[in-house]
Every structure is written in structure tokens, then in C-alpha cells.
């Protein structure tokens, strides 16, 4: 047997494999083109733009000037504080509420399908419609929420119109809009827990809370931590809710988030460079969280 040279063999191998998967490659080309035009190219441009200035019809390199401008702007620090506040509140509310709701839903043996649908309905509503609805609910003069508080003999709130409550109000609306999806994921995880574990816990005399603590939480730990990371990544990029509910500012700028500020830099002030620089900072931070997410999900598979 003569030994054929290795390169020719592997080339033929490659061609054979390519021909075998011709259809698959055909499909892939479309996706690759779309991603390169609409995702990867803009990302590269954004990166370049962060180091350029585009005034006066020309583009020139300015090094770290855009970053210096961004970090010299007091609004940036306020925006980061607001974003962290939103993320914190969104985790406290948006993480716990769907989990509790899924626990409750899981206890229902009848009509669970309908209840699932009811919980998921808000997700199907267009975000703008939900937000307009909440805008009316929050109105301090005629809003539904203050009417309810009045009925319960509780003090009326300023909701979106006070620096103390504006961000919380945004988070409540956001949680309501997004909790359906998270609830369904938790529910699926809960239903994957073997019933014997609960039976064993019951035989050992565990009550509801101890069952949740010793069985449910350990069994869903991975899903919970993945969801936590995904929520951090999503909430750090919040834009629609503060932009539509409070015009992107709120009382004394208390609901301007980082992404809202990026938007304002680019489209209100023509500061494309500043917008790109700030976007890059956010990207770096979120890339860290994403790496963590990838690592966790790999552990999950193992």
C-alpha cells in the first residue's frame, strides 16, 4: 500500500464533506450574510467610532478623547447609578416574583394550562401598549393606582414623579411586562423535580417552606443562577421602559439609564463618538457577565 500524502487526502475529505452538506452550507450563507451586515459590521464600526470624531463632515482619530468626554460628564455617573439601581430593584422584584408565582402555579393540579396562559398574556402585549397603560395607572391625579390606595385609605404616591419612587415604578411596570417568560421557565424546571424527593421530605416531616428550601431550590439552582445572569445582562441594557414611561429623564434625571444616555448622545446631541465609547464600556462589562453565563451553562451540561 502506497501512502498517499496527507494534504491531498484531507483536501478530498473536505470537498466530500462540503458536497455532502451543500444544502446546509447554502442555508448557512444567508445567515452569515445577515449577521455580518446587521450585527458584526455595526459592532466593528461601533468599536472604531469610539476612537473617532465625526464632526464637520470628516472623520478623524482622536484616541481616548471620547472616553475622557464621557467620564467627564456628570450625567454618566448618574446614569450608571440609575442603571445599577434598576438592575438591583429588577432582581429583587423581577427575580423573586416569577419564582414565587411559578411555585404557586406548580401547586395547582387543575386548570394549570389556563393559569399559565394568563400569566404569559402580558408578554404578548406590545411593550408600548403596556407602558401607556402603566402611564395612566401611575398618573398622580387620575391614575388607577392612587384611586386604589385612596380606597384602601392609604396615602397617595407620586409614582413616576418623585425621585424616591420613579425608578421603582419603572421596575414594577417592567416586571409585570416580562415576568411571564421567566415564570414559564421556572415552572418547567419545577416540574422536572422528581416527586419522590418531596415525598421523602414529607415523610421526614418537612413543611412547605422547608420543602422549598431543601428540595426545590437545590434542584433548580442551576436554572436559577443562569436566569439571574441573563436578567443582569438584560436589565443593564434597559431602554424601552424608562424611555417611554419617563421620556428618558424622569424627575431630575432619576430614570436616565446608560442605554438611554447612549441614545441621547447619538441622536439628541450628535455625539456619536461619545455614544460609541459609552456603549463600549457597557459591552465590556456585559461581556464579563456573558463569559460567566457561558461557563455556568457548560457546567450545567456536564
Amino acid at each position, binding site marked *: 500500500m502506497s501512502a498517499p500524502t496527507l494534504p491531498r487526502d484531507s483536501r478530498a475529505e473536505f470537498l466530500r464533506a462540503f458536497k455532502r452538506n451543500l444544502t446546509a452550507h447554502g442555508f448557512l450563507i444567508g445567515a452569515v450574510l445577515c449577521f455580518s451586515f446587521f450585527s458584526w459590521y455595526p459592532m466593528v464600526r461601533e468599536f472604531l467610532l469610539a476612537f473617532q470624531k465625526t464632526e464637520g*463632515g470628516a472623520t478623524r482619530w482622536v484616541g481616548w478623547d471620547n472616553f475622557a468626554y464621557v467620564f467627564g460628564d456628570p450625567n454618566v455617573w448618574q446614569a450608571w447609578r440609575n442603571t445599577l439601581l434598576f438592575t438591583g430593584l429588577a432582581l429583587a422584584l423581577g427575580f423573586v416574583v416569577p419564582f414565587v408565582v411559578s411555585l404557586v402555579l406548580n401547586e395547582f393540579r387543575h386548570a394549570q394550562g389556563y393559569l399559565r396562559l394568563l400569566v404569559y398574556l402580558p408578554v404578548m402585549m406590545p411593550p408600548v401598549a403596556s407602558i401607556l397603560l402603566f402611564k395612566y395607572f401611575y*398618573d398622580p*391625579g387620575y391614575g388607577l393606582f392612587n384611586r386604589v390606595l385612596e380606597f384602601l385609605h392609604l396615602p397617595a404616591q407620586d409614582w413616576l414623579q418623585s425621585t424616591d419612587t420613579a425608578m421603582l415604578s419603572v421596575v414594577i411596570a417592567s416586571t409585570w411586562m416580562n415576568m411571564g417568560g421567566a415564570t414559564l421557565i421556572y415552572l418547567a424546571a419545577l416540574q422536572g423535580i422528581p416527586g419522590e424527593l418531596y415525598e421523602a421530605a414529607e415523610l421526614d416531616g418537612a413543611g412547605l417552606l422547608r420543602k422549598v428550601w431543601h428540595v426545590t431550590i437545590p434542584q433548580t439552582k442551576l436554572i436559577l443562577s443562569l436566569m439571574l445572569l441573563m436578567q443582569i445582562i438584560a436589565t443593564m441594557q434597559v431602554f424601552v421602559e424608562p424611555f417611554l414611561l419617563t421620556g428618558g429623564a424622569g*424627575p431630575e434625571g432619576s430614570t436616565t439609564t446608560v442605554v438611554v444616555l447612549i441614545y*441621547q448622545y447619538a441622536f439628541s446631541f450628535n455625539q456619536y463618538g461619545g455614544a460609541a465609547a459609552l456603549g463600549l464600556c457597557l459591552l465590556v462589562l456585559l461581556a464579563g457577565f456573558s463569559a460567566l453565563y457561558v461557563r455556568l451553562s457548560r457546567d450545567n451540561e456536564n
Partner: protein
Amino acid sequence: MRTNVRRNVAAALASALAVTALAACGTSSSADDKPQASGGSTDATTPLDPKTKVTLSIDCMPPAAKAAELKEWKEDVAEFNKTYPNVTIEGRSTPGQCLEPPRFTAMLKAKSQPDVFYAYFTDLQQVLDNDGVQDISAYVTPASVPALDDIDKNVMDVLKRDGKLYGVPTSNYTMGLLVNRKLFQQAGLDPDSPPRSWDEVRTAAKKIAALGNGVAGFGEYSVENTGGWHYTATMYGMGGDIVGADGKAAFNNPTGRQIVDNLHAMRWEDDSMGKTQLLKWGDLQKQMASDKLGMFLAAPDDITYMVQQLGAKYDNFGMGPIPGGAATLAGGNGYMIKKGSSPDKVKAAIAWLNFKTLAVGKGQFRYDRSKADGLPVGLPQPAFFTGASKAKDDELKAASATMPVANFKPFLDHPVPGKPEPVKAQEVYKVLDKVMSGVLTNKDADPAQLLGDAEKAVNQVLGNQ
């Protein structure tokens, strides 16, 4: 600025498209921008030779949805072509606002603006920065624009830089105090003499709010740059300024403080400004059109919006001069001509603009036709004529008025000098929004701190030219 705000939402949505447009339109300038070799004259002072063939692309032709306006445009083109048969007008229509800032910026950067393009008064600096506009000083003379000497000098000056003229106005606005006549009468106030000072505004607002039923006396904006815009207008009315001659913030002073204190008192002591705050352009109009608001600072075309979009009636509104009356925020829009256009093109453009937008009794000032076409006639603005042209224009307008013009008498009888918006207006307004939202949403707001912080932020914006 007022129009800027209205556009912001649409502009946001259009911005992605604008970037694409930037890429697509990069090469649309054509060879005919160069001076023509034959048949033309390079002398700016000689009139356009009727034999010269010129094609003009022009922004802001009314879209098909505005049927009456489009019909008038076409009639005007036909009429104009009787005198200049060799000038071809290529109108380009825009579906929404004639100018959306992101699209406008993209167009300037790609040098793809039409030969005759639409711009806001505040756009001049940006247009010059992009080297996109033709100096038309030599072409605009009493020979080419007969009413020239009767056009308000303040308006023309806005379109000049270093003594050179870069555009002609098509409309202008100044701000005043818009009042709801029904609520004024119900509160026992005289709608024919609206408040002239902030003390009077405060007193009147209290009386109107006392009507109850959710009625507010006075309303004010505080987000999406409209808060800062109105703070500026209020400041001008009281004789103050936003940016001083030294190029630094000039509002952290007793006048600026007085505005904040007055709003705080109306909002929290008198409770005459309603509970709902964080309002922007469009919100106060809705309240006033539904008889829930007595007064707010506005330009006359807010009334058109309330009547045409919100179903209100013209006779329910009136206007007075801006409280204080020292100066009022003025703005407007006009047409500019693309840099590098041939002299014949410039002459043809001036001839068209004169016919369509600057001649008493013609084009946009043919009130009898507007009335017949069901368009509103009788609002006090646009108004940039003075002298004999003004008298004639007023007479024609009154003869075809479709609304009670007497309601605007207080505004017209006490003209307040117009003052342009500050430099970097939008960025400055964004900062001042915080002052407005602070005082209107926080009972314990610290005015000194609000103004101090805003002063620092504005100086930062101004320093970053």
C-alpha cells in the same frame, strides 16, 4: 425647537433608516451643479435669462396626504412656469416633518441635499460646518425679492453669518401666552386681556384651578428638552439670558431664581399646575383642547395642532404676549441653496422662493385660496413682513380669515422682540430639563442647588465645542 421636539420620537425611529440613507445617497450630486458652460450668466445681479434651462430639486413639497397643500403647490408651479417656462421644479415630498435632524445630518454629510433645501433657523451653524450652503447675498436684492426691505430685519439676521446671507425665511414664530377662553370666562377673568406679568399669571392660574374638576391654571413641560426650551423662553421674557456674551451659562442669577421660585409656588403652594408633571410637547395641548388647562407658553401654530389633530375649535383660544415682555424666543425655518450651484440655478431658486414664500398675495400668502381649500387663515404667524407689505398682508389675511382674529389682538398689539435660541440649544435644554422637573416634582427641591448644578453642566457643554 418646538418642531424639533415633535420630531424627536419619529426621528428616533427614522435614525436607523437615516444611516442607510447616508450610505445610499452618497453620490447623488450631479454634474449640473457646476456653472453651466452656455446659456447662463455668472453675474449675480442680472435677472435670470428666461431662455436658460434649469432644473431645481426642492425639499418639502407637501405629501399626497396633505391634498390641499399639494394642490396649491402644483398650481404655484404651473403659475411660476408661465413666467419661467424653462425652469423645471422637481419637488421632493417628505411624509412627516420636513426636517428630521438625524436624516438632515446624514444628508449634509453625504452632500446629498437637494438644490434648494429646507432648514430650521438653528441649523445654520451645522450647515456651514459641513460646507453645504451657498452664499446668496449678491442674489437677494430688491430686484429679485421686491418685498425684501419689508422683511423683518431680525428674521433676516438669523440667516446671516459674518454679513453674508445664507437663506431666506418661509415662516417664523415667536412665543406668547396661549389661553383657553372658556376657562377664563368661567373663572371670571377677561380672555381679551391675558396676564402680562408672572404675578398676574399666578393670580389667574389660582382662579382657574379653583374651578375644580381637575382643571389646572397653568401648565409647563419638563422632559425631552421641552422643559429647558420653556425655561429659556421664560427667561427671555423676563429680560434674562441663558448663555451670556462671554459664552458661559448666564441663568444662575436672581432672574433665573425667580422663575424657579415662581413655578415652585404655583405648583406646591397654589396647587394651580395640576398634579401630572414630566410633560412634553403635545401633552399640554391635549389638556387645553379638552378644557382642562387655562394657560401655557406656546407659539400660534400650537392652535392649528389642537384644532386639526385634537378636534378643538379656533374660537376657544386666544393669545397674549409672553409674560414679562422683554424679549421672546423666536424661531422658524427657511430655504437654503446647495453650495456649488450654478449662478443660474441660484437665480432660478430665488425667483421660485420669492414667488412661493416671500411675495405678498402670492404663494403661501394667497389667503383667499387657502380659505377656499379649507386651510386655516387668521393665525398671527408666520409674520415676517413689516411696513407696507405687512399692512397689505394683514388686510388680505383679515379678508379671508377662517377664525376670530380678534382673539389674537393682545398678542399682535404688543409685539415682543424675538430672540434666537442659545448656542447648543438642545444640549443646554436637556440640562435645564432637570431644573424644571426638579421644581415641578419635588416639593423640597433646593432651587440654588438645581441652578448651580445646571450652571456647571451647561458650562461643560459649552466648553466642549
